[in-house]
């Protein structure tokens, strides 16, 4: 995609989102859209490490919850406004991501994946025992009175999430197309060979884990205001981690557009199923779609589309 077209598309989507808040009043749509966007942001973030660099992160829910609990703690302690909370969530996620990056020095492949899962459970245990943010009981959040010029707070949250997601997509695209992204791809294909060819593997991996962690922290930061009641069960939900893995795998991991396609497809399906069938079924669907896709089309939708396109070109 050409640069101008890409930025134009982003601006158009954002404008459409803003216009929507002027037309539609029903809060349900903003709820549904917020969840889809949150999942997209998580999928884009996961893909930066999982898809571009080839390190599987099972602990996405841990990063997400760190963002959410940073908001809970700072909101309780200082009452900061939302933009600062989002920045703080991103900073905490990024720092922990950096730590995770150093872990890749010792742990490769499977062991890294298990370590991320371990990290998420250790953080969950810490939060469960941290009474200031509510511990295992959870804590309530008051929705702030002010919501700029929007009709309701959820409308504003939706626009904020839209902006964050678009920004993440832009970052992901830049990483994918840049020299840095080619370095990451080299690590994914063969880390030793990449190191031997002069790719600064450690630095690139650190950037990759840090960007992933920061994005997931950012995704989690507005969450407490969205649900108004946070407890470890909802913030560390396995569903979040499964979505973050399933969406890029279904869409295709090698290209920046893959997680976006996967997230929009799976997220929309989930919301439709939630309304028409039941909210438990929408959880099941993502698991089934994940298994079916990686068994039958391991390259994802983008991979299949590229294959078809190249086949026709010949």
């Amino acid at each position, binding site marked *: 995609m050409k640069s101008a077209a890409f930025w134009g598309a982003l601006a158009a989507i954002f404008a459409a989102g803003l216009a929507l808040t002027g037309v539609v009043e029903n809060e349900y749509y903003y709820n549904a859209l917020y969840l889809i966007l949150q999942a997209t942001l998580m999928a884009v973030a996961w893909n930066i490490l*999982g898809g571009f660099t*080839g390190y*599987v992160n*099972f602990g996405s829910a841990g990063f997400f919850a760190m963002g959410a609990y940073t908001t809970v703690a700072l909101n309780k302690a200082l009452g900061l406004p939302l933009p600062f909370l989002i920045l703080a969530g991103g900073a905490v996620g990024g720092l922990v991501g950096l730590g995770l990056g150093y872990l890749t020095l*010792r*742990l490769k*492949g*499977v*062991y890294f*994946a*298990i*370590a991320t*899962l*371990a*990290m998420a*459970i*250790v953080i*969950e*245990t*810490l939060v*469960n*025992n941290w009474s200031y943010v509510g511990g*295992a009981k959870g804590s309530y959040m008051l929705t702030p009175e002010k919501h700029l010029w929007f009709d309701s707070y959820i409308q504003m949250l939706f626009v904020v999430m839209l902006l964050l997601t678009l920004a993440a997509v832009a970052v992901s695209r830049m990483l994918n197309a840049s020299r840095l992204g080619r370095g990451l791809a080299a690590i994914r294909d063969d880390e030793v060979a990449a190191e031997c060819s002069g790719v600064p593997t450690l630095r690139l991996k650190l950037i990759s884990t840090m960007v992933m962690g920061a994005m997931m922290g950012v995704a989690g930061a507005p969450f407490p205001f969205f649900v108004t009641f946070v407890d470890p069960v909802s913030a560390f939900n*396995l569903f979040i981690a*499964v979505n973050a*893995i*399933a969406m890029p*795998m279904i869409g295709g*991991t090698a290209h920046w557009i893959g997680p976006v396609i996967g997230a929009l497809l799976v997220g929309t399906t989930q919301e439709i199923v939630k309304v028409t069938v039941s909210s*438990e*079924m929408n*959880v*099941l669907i*993502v*698991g*089934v779609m*994940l*298994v079916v896709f*990686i*068994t*039958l089309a*391991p390259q994802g939708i983008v991979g299949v589309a590229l294959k078809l396109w190249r086949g026709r070109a010949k």
Partner: protein
Amino acid sequence: MLSADLLANAVVAGILLGGFYAAVAIGLAIVFGQLDIVNIAHPAFIIVGAYIAYILNSRFGLDPVLIGLAAAPVFFLVGALIYRIYFLAFERTGQESLSGLAFFFGVMFIIEVVLILIYGVDYRLVQADYIGQTWSLGFVDFPLRMLVPFAVAAALTAGIHAYLSRTFMGRAIQAVAQDRLALQLMGADPVRIKQWAFGLGIATAAIAGSLLIVIGPVEPSVGRQYIGRVFAIVVLGGMGSIQGMFIAALILGVVESMVSTFVGPSWSPAVAFGVLALTLALRPAGLFGRQ
């Protein structure tokens, strides 16, 4: 604060718990330790085993451990089938690392959600005469709901160890782990052997599941707490070593029991991961490593 009887009880409870952990981890010690298949869905299969024990126990009043033994052959067939799919989709095309992981992650999630859809998130338990009883030796308690799983798990571990080291098929499984190509040159089919071994690993999940529900009530998401434990045990024991796995399970059981007694039960889930992280950082080959 630190009294002798409290300490003794914590250690004994930890050893009994650790023995049970061995039954939980032994399937993974075969599948992950010997075959290098990262079956993170293994605890989910254990939960399925626990639910089968619950269903048959509440319907017909059968003994949960016997149900587990009876369900093992069925689990064996299911495991063989899953390995077939795994082989065709991932191993044959050399994509087992990333896609295979995600595959088992998805399987784990599907099992959990299906169980929740059918049985809800209520805790389920089984009835058996021995579950409420306790033997006492001086001031140390041996609750039978822990002692029976310990005995069954120890027998299972001994049986699997004998099977792997004495029988032809068991040695073939170890040979696959050591050198797949050499095995092929001897005219054996590694895929068939791995399929057999994977089935064996899943079959142990039926027994471990029945032990799990003897120890305490079970709900679908309990399995997740065991992911860290089983991998910690297999890695600490040294990939593929059955004796090492058993000792590692006892160590983890004792440490968890101590933390639970002296620090607080809400901290015990983090113990397994602490052990795992320390092992990976300090001695990745484990206590009795295969390399």
